[in-house]
């Protein structure tokens, strides 16, 4: 087990290095940061001096080498735009993204599993048909559009919920050390609902369809028939046996999707003006804020790697067969 984790960590480091390398290659094409850092009246000589100071005239492999070296020292550089250490910025923006991701993942999981079970057990009921149709819309509509529609309906027309998230006032945010949370106040919840639904919509429909398909499959197997023959209640059969046996793929997908949720939060954050790392990244792209872009991409790579690792470890816990297999092959 320990050897496995160490091996995965080494792979993870490699993955992050490669991501950073590709990112740096791409930075040659995103434009010139200098124009965003000075006003229109700044002379060409001053612009050139700044470029030289920032090392932007060096070939990319030297810039990349410097970046890696600084990261190893725990220094992500300073934002060109905000003149603040990038790690401070991430610490400011990350709580918002993580809260949004966790809330929408929970929403997706709870409603996804519930709806999946329901549509599997009552396959032909009208409500199931409605759920299946609605879920099709959830998969096919782009996040951006879902967000705009929700804002238009619930904020602009009905005035039920606010159109933008987490404005950071005293009535919606609570500070716990360096972490700020919107989950301890009513206003904070009012502001997270729409973005969380938008972000979790795709995952919810995915989980629902997955659970439904797996349930239908499991319900046909022999051990369910035996369970029924033993006279167990429907409840015990459905939830104690059938649902439990669909959980391995559901855990895999939910886990893997959690990385996706964080990475794709960019669009949702943008639409709802949610001050998370996705917004931070978009702003960095617009202003060619290279240190921020680089740090964000490495961070996202790390999230994926960690999530994958966590899922692998969960397998060991959930499915005893995997444990045996891995240890015998000793791979």
């Amino acid at each position, binding site marked *: 087990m320990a050897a496995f984790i160490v091996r995965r960590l080494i792979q993870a480091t490699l993955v992050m290095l490669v991501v950073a390398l590709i990112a740096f290659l791409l930075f040659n*094409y*995103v*434009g*010139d*940061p*200098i*124009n*965003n*850092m*000075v*006003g*229109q*009246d*700044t*002379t*060409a*000589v*001053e*612009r050139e001096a*700044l*470029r030289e*100071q*920032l090392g932007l005239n060096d070939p990319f492999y030297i810039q990349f080498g410097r970046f890696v070296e600084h990261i190893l020292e725990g*220094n992500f*550089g*300073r*934002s*060109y*735009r*905000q*003149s*603040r*250490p990038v790690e401070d*910025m991430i610490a*400011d923006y990350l709580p918002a993204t993580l809260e949004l991701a966790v809330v929408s993942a929970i929403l997706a999981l709870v409603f996804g599993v519930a709806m999946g079970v329901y549509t599997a057990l009552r396959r032909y009921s009208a409500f199931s048909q409605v759920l299946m149709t609605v879920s099709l819309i959830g998969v096919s509509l782009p996040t951006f559009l879902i967000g*705009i529609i929700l*804002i*238009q309906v619930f*904020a*602009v027309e009905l*005035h039920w919920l*606010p*159109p*933008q998230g*987490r*404005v*950071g*006032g005293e009535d919606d945010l609570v500070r716990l050390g360096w972490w700020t949370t919107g989950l301890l106040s009513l206003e904070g919840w009012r502001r997270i609902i729409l973005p969380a639904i938008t972000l979790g919509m795709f995952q919810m429909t995915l989980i629902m369809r997955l659970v439904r398909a797996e349930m239908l499959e499991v319900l046909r197997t022999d051990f369910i028939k035996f369970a029924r023959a033993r006279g167990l209640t429907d409840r015990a059969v459905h939830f104690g046996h059938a649902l439990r046996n669909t959980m391995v793929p559901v855990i895999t997908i939910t886990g893997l999707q959690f990385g996706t949720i964080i990475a794709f939060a960019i669009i949702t954050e*943008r*639409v*709802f*003006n949610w*001050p998370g790392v996705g*917004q*931070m990244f*978009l*702003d960095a792209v*617009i*202003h*060619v804020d290279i240190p921020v872009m680089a740090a964000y991409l490495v961070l996202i790579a790390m999230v994926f790697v960690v999530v994958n690792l966590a899922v692998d470890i969960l397998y060991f816990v959930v499915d005893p067969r995997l444990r045996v297999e891995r240890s015998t092959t000793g791979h």
Partner: protein
Amino acid sequence: MKLKAALLAGAVLLAAGTAAQAETLRFAFQGQVSSLDPHSLNETFTLGYQGNIYEGLISRGPNLEIEPALATSWELMEPTRWRFHLREGVTFHNGNPFTADDVVFSYERAISEGSDVRTKVGGITEVVAVDDYTVDFITESPNPIIMAEWETWYIMDREWCEEHGATGVTNVADPDAENYANLHANGTGPFMVTVREPGVRTVAVPFADWWGEPQHNLTEVVFTPIAEDATRVAALLAGDVDMAYPIPLQDIERVEDNDGTRALTGPELRTIFLGLDQARDELLYSSVEGTNPFQDRRVRLAFYQAIDMNAIQQVVMRGQSTPSAAMVAPGINGFPEELERYPYDPEAARALLAEAGYPEGFSVRLNCPNDRYVNDEDICIAVTNMLGQVGIDVELMAETKSIYFGRILAQGGYDTSFYLLGWTPGSFDSYNVLYNLVHTRNEDGAGTFNNGGYSNPEVDALTAQILSETDQDARAAMIAEAWQMLHDDVGYIPLHQQALAWGVSDNVELIQRADNEFVWNWVTINQ
């Protein structure tokens, strides 16, 4: 007195439920306040925000007229020596008194390394504190408009900067220095910052000891950046903010039609124009070889007359623009009112091209930004089509601003044959445009943004005279003459001034200034 205070407190408590909330102004802009350091970035919005916290020696009124601020009066002692008399009894937010020493310090800071406001105090050789409330500015050559950009050259407190190690300007290039002034502010202005969360919100409250008479009735100002257009408009319509800008042209009607909000529009000071490479002997991106067609005035005029500004105004800009014959906007000192656009006339354009030796036309590449100005790419598409009507085959190359400016400006070696650009003179004076865009490019920095390399020695000579002429009438005549020459030469093709568009809640009264700066002191919230 105590009783009165107690009664007042009671009344305030009773009213607190609604009134306290109503006097909070919440506003949104598409970008962020990059820094609170007033010398670190010369950008309209950032400087405009800081202008509510910090002040300059002068300020500008609703119509951009120069008004006394931290200086009460000024006089020209000799051609190269200006004397400014400072306001007495002014304190910074931390309680420190404002004196001549702070002006000298702010000057030194503004010209130090990393400062982006150097041009605002350019041409000054020495700043002398004569006594606590008198400062002399000695200039290299006579400068009649020395204070023109000083409403955004903000005065900082020397003691405060020294105490917090912020005597230098916030400098990104120096990775070890975390500048205190980047996240904290201490000005003399009517508001002071209480909460600074970059990218999320910045909160300010009125400064009780401000020297001026507050015209606002605000108790708090909360700023949130909202980058996405649709969300910014929705936040205004849903009442989540009281004021938001800019409003995209296509949403102006929605804001007007919505109950409780209105749109405020007006011409902006920025002029959008097309530039043509007249410097090279052969264009970089054109089918014409061995010669540069843009060196022929007839070709430049043909391009000018082929463009239908009315159509662009009606269709592309939805009526929200003012076609312009000049390279400066009304409201800029020296705006040539009498100048008229050459009429739209595709027939004449074709004839001019034939006369110049291009009866079949030719092809040329047009460089254009697609995220900098209002509908910039659409303007270029319209121009492309209109030039196509007279036989010019335009290859449009539209790019994001970071790449675009890197290409067409000096650092990219003026890598363009034909381009679209916008310019607002920071001094609100024609000289700034003549010097940066019209003057022949030289090593002293003149004509740095003259990307097309237009050059007319007579205009250059006039520009030099305009800088040092202290007689206002003679100066105005010279500016008018320079604009006329440029117009006659067709050195540029001016297009229009785009419109400002602010969305405002109906219970908010404010003044929209043409430089797009939002002054909170002019805001009142009605119940």
